[in-house]
């Protein structure tokens, strides 16, 4: 057993799944030997997880907010609700630990990025937004950028939410103010504006996506020097839009259904205008947990540059996407062209439908528990 330990702070849908992902026997082609601690403010939740994980995971109650992590904890993954992660990240950085956060709240993501100089001075790494979007979206953008000589635009779209906290954050985002990057400046736009039809892998298909208060642009802009436009949108229905001014009476489901994240890059290759579209189809909680866990393992076992960064700037895109693929979170690239007609089009469409069905089936079966 290694003398390293990773602590997962938070034991909701995401925290429990991160713990499960960390328990995998192998990571990055080698046996996984890092010990795990799960921290929660809810003792009853720890009891449930203790029954599930047994003695493999050390459970630590933080009911009074004064829990102290063991000295062998080198890396902390923060899986609390968005908006509650900054305090933990700050505290753990000061304690000399590397930190991986999963927040998708843009205000909190900005605050976390502002911890960069502190992390750098302490020689620690703070990974910001290692979840579904941001997180996987940053990895997809980073990978797709390798196919272009120059990246001019990045457009992210997400469908679905993980647990109840994530669903609540999704609604807040749609009702909030979006911050887009446009020609070297941040531009504020109202949520639910800028409707765009985005195509996700089947069975999700085409969804109307709207601007929302999302954190992806804040993490992508520093990683892509010279990028001119970065936007992020959320899929929502017209019913969501019509009911936006009213309070929500129905509670969010314990875990959302299948979701997807789609990243479109526009730029130049060989002197020609080109676009690249990547996507991941999965349950958001599963994909987010795998991304956070794999990032935590990478940070714990590798030497990452000190400072605060999103996943696109971590410099581990290929390794992380490769490990995620082994864990069933598979990225896909859209191949095709617009405007063709005739029978070839129908054949291609049938082929793409079949491939999409295989993708969806794989995504579903690879996470059966």
């Amino acid at each position, binding site marked *: 057993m290694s003398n390293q330990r990773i602590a997962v702070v938070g034991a909701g849908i995401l925290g429990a799944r991160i713990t499960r992902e960390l328990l995998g026997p192998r990571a990055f082609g080698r046996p996984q030997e890092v010990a795990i601690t799960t921290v929660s403010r809810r003792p009853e939740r720890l009891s449930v997880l203790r029954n599930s994980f047994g003695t493999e995971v050390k459970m630590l109650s933080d009911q009074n907010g004064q829990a102290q992590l063991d000295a062998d904890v080198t890396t902390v993954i923060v899986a609390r609700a968005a908006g509650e992660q900054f305090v933990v990240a700050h505290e753990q950085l000061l304690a000399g630990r590397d930190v991986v956060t999963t927040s998708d709240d843009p205000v909190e993501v900005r605050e976390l990025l502002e911890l960069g100089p502190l992390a750098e001075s302490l020689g620690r790494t703070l990974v910001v937004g290692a979840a579904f979007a941001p997180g996987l979206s940053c990895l997809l953008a980073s*990978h797709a950028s390798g196919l272009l000589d120059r990246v001019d635009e990045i457009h992210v779209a997400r469908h679905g939410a993980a647990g109840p906290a994530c669903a609540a954050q999704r609604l807040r985002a749609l009702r909030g103010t979006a911050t887009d990057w446009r020609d070297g400046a941040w531009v504020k736009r109202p949520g639910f504006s800028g409707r765009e*039809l985005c*195509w996700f*892998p089947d069975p999700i298909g*085409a969804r109307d996506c709207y601007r929302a208060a999302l954190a992806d642009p804040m993490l992508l802009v520093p990683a892509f020097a010279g990028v001119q436009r970065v936007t992020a949108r959320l899929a929502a229905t*017209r*019913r969501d839009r*019509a009911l936006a001014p009213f309070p929500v009476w129905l509670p969010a489901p314990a875990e959302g259904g299948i979701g997807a994240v789609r990243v479109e890059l526009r730029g130049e290759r060989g002197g020609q205008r080109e676009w690249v579209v*990547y*996507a991941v189809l999965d349950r958001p909680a599963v994909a987010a947990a795998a991304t956070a866990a794999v990032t935590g393992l990478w940070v714990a076992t590798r030497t990452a540059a000190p400072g605060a960064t999103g996943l696109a700037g971590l410099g581990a895109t*290929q390794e992380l*996407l*490769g490990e995620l*693929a082994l864990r069933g979170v*598979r*990225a*896909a*690239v*859209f*191949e*095709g*062209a*617009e*405007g*063709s*007609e005739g029978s*070839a*089009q129908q054949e*291609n*469409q049938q*082929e*793409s*439908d079949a*491939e*999409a069905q295989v*993708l969806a089936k*794989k995504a579903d079966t690879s996470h059966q528990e």
Partner: protein
Amino acid sequence: MRGLQRAVLALGLGLLVSLVVRFLGGDATPPSTGGWRELEGPELR
């Protein structure tokens, strides 16, 4: 008075129909060609 009632009724019915059409809109136009392909080993190394 009767004319006003009819006008209000017509406006109400029009609003109702437009809301139904708005929220039960048809399918979007499908993409012309292409499909999703999973990234494979060499692309992830």
